[in-house]
């Protein structure tokens, strides 16, 4: 965890005061709604179907137990007792009153949480691999760099009024858990032949109406130069990104229209004006940020403790351990994912009671640290293996031990028409129905890794393009219909899914998904050929035939 210093604290508190003043001026009529809208958006406040929605940043997905308790407190005090974790390491509260927002923000600021730039046409929350710092095989902890980026992009005087929103994601692993290829800028920490740490920089990824996979703009930028290089990219985008059409305003369209080579040349030109200037980082600056990250004092523990051997006879525990527990870089420890996808539940929701309980468990078993991943699940990143049976028992009681991580019912979904004023169709009930159909853990385990992503409209908050199975809600003659794509993926081999055929009505979606899964089970070469690999090998045809033959 990064611990704020007095500079960070001053900025966050001053931002709360500024927002309080903006809300006051809106409520007394000094600001029109038109003038206020971009101001509230830049602090994460949307106007939804029923109420204001408030989106709070969880930079690079890291939370302390104290911070999670404060989020629970906000859910309980200012909202209806729950929150929704999003695909970009934010949490959303759906029922908050405008007049209460400054107080809620002030309470969050006490524990170093803010809502800066969780919306609006500015640089958004910087996201990272939720296993950063604990996954085996990383170059180094990418959160140090994510924090440098968070600070640099917060209240940036030049880039707060961009053509459109702008998102960063960062990873330090070969296996990409941060979906960097579908971000405006994706950063991968790498080491060059001289042993220097730097970044492969990708640009122009994004979903929405015109999905693109990000392209490498520069294969190596030294760590010391990363801020000036990113400044150059943003400066080119701010000047030349389209502002005539909201659907063509993201950087992906500029990169696409210019071509990556021409765009890269523009960036080099802009960079030449500012490289070696005040944005150049030196070792002291990086070290100062690194020194404010608190790391656990791990004990020397056995890799196979007696407690694990004793619990191995419990089939439910073993199913959970096999599914939700991942290797840690430290011997004797494990990374534990807490599924927020119970059968029949809305994906990514957690009640205030669950948040408080997870905070307590984090204190007891994970050095007080919690992570939030883009798959809308929580993570306890430093659990001693000997504590796994006790942790499992506690999570099971809380409904947070569904052994479906990475499986067919671990569905990513946007809020959809139940909340969102942009949506064409509902997402949550589709996810709920699918999670009921695939509720049997043995069936889910038999199917293996399969990501289903649901978006209620073309804005693609549920990342449907990159779901192994993607479900997109559309409206046809006033009714909810859904387009189904297959073969998408969001990892290092990111690809966009392919449409299998005409959209199907609301009532048939779950049947169609069951047909697709059954087709896969009968077509796969081996039990360990993943769904997405089978689609790659076979193309969409056999799946399409199965779905539409009887419809």
């Amino acid at each position, binding site marked *: 965890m990064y611990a704020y210093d007095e500079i960070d604290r001053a*900025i966050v508190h001053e931002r709360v005061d500024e927002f309080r003043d903006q809300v006051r001026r809106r409520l007394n009529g000094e600001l029109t709604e038109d003038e206020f809208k*971009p101001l509230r958006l830049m602090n994460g406040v949307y106007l939804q179907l029923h109420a204001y929605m408030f989106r709070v940043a969880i930079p690079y997905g890291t939370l302390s137990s104290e911070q999670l308790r404060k989020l629970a407190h906000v859910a309980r005090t200012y909202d209806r007792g729950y929150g929704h974790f999003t695909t970009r390491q934010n949490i959303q509260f759906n029922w908050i009153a405008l007049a209460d927002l400054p107080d809620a923000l002030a309470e969050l600021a006490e524990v170093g949480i803010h809502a800066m730039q969780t919306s609006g046409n500015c640089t958004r929350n910087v996201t990272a691999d939720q296993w950063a710092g604990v996954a085996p095989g990383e170059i180094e902890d990418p959160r140090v760099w994510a924090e440098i980026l968070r600070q640099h992009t917060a209240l940036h005087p030049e880039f707060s009024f961009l053509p459109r929103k702008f998102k960063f994601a960062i990873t330090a692993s070969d296996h990409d858990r941060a979906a960097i290829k579908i971000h405006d800028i994706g950063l991968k920490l790498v080491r060059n032949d001289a042993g220097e740490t730097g970044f492969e920089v990708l640009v122009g990824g994004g979903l929405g109406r015109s999905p693109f996979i990000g392209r490498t703009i520069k294969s190596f930028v030294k760590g010391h130069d990363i801020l000036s290089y990113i400044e150059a990219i943003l400066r080119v985008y701010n000047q030349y990104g389209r502002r005539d059409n909201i659907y063509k305003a993201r950087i992906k369209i500029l990169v696409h229209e210019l071509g990556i080579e021409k765009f890269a040349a523009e960036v080099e030109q802009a960079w030449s004006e500012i490289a070696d200037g005040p944005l150049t980082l030196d070792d002291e600056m990086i070290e100062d940020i690194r020194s404010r990250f608190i790391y656990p004092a791990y004990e020397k523990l056995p890799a196979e403790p007696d407690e694990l051997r004793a619990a191995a006879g419990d089939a439910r525990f073993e199913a959970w351990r096999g599914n939700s527990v991942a290797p840690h870089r430290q011997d004797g420890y494990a990374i534990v994912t807490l599924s927020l996808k119970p059968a029949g539940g809305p994906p990514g929701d957690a009640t205030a009671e669950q948040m408080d309980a997870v905070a307590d468990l984090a204190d007891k078993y994970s050095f007080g640290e919690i992570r939030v991943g883009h798959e809308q699940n929580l993570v306890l990143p430093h659990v001693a293996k000997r504590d796994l049976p006790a942790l499992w028992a506690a999570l099971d009681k809380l409904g947070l031990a569904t052994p479906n991580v990475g499986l067919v019912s671990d569905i990513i979904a946007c809020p959809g028409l139940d909340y969102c004023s942009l949506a064409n169709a509902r997402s949550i009930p589709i996810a709920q129905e699918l999670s009921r159909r695939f509720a049997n853990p043995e069936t889910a385990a038999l199917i293996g890794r399969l990501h289903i992503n649901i978006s209620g409209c073309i804005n693609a908050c549920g990342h449907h393009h990159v779901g192994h199975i993607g479900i997109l809600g559309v409206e046809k003659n006033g009714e909810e219909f859904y387009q189904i794509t297959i073969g998408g993926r969001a990892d290092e081999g990111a690809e966009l899914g392919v449409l299998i055929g005409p959209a199907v009505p609301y009532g048939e979606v779950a049947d169609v998904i069951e047909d697709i899964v059954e087709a896969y089970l009968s077509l796969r070469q081996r039990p360990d050929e993943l769904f997405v690999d089978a689609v790659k090998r076979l193309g969409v045809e056999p799946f399409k035939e199965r779905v539409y033959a009887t419809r």
Partner: protein
Amino acid sequence: MPLVKNGQIAADDFVAVADDAELPAAGPVLISATRLLADPERLVARNSPLGVVWPNNRDVAELKPWLDRLALIALVFPTYKDGRAHSQARRLREVYGYRGELRATGQVLRDQFTFLVRNGFDALDVKKEADAHAFREATHRYTEFYQPTGDGHRSALQLRRQRHLTSAS
């Protein structure tokens, strides 16, 4: 629309002259980019302060040869959501070293003031009277800044570097 210059409400000495109107014999004038670029040598040689309104979709690098002879560059915010002139301002000040008056025009509202000043604007053509009077309050809300710009504030990283070196010695 009050003009706030170097933090004070001030009179605008410049007279905007349309492209087809004759320039007055003396006194500060503000002309379009088109007019300036049609005959720059003669215009900058004129014996009174010269200002230019520079559109937000034209590269400010074109102004480089004339920067030390321009008294005013007015950049444009058609709406405050269109932030192109923020980049133009920083390039003029920090990259090309322009030292004359840099004025923000268009939809210039109170909640942009800090950003504008940080980016090098020293004159704001403020849309609302009340906003102009709130200039001091609006630009003193923040005491710390993460980014280094040309405004003289030391960035958070620069301050920490200092702290780091002090504690090491």
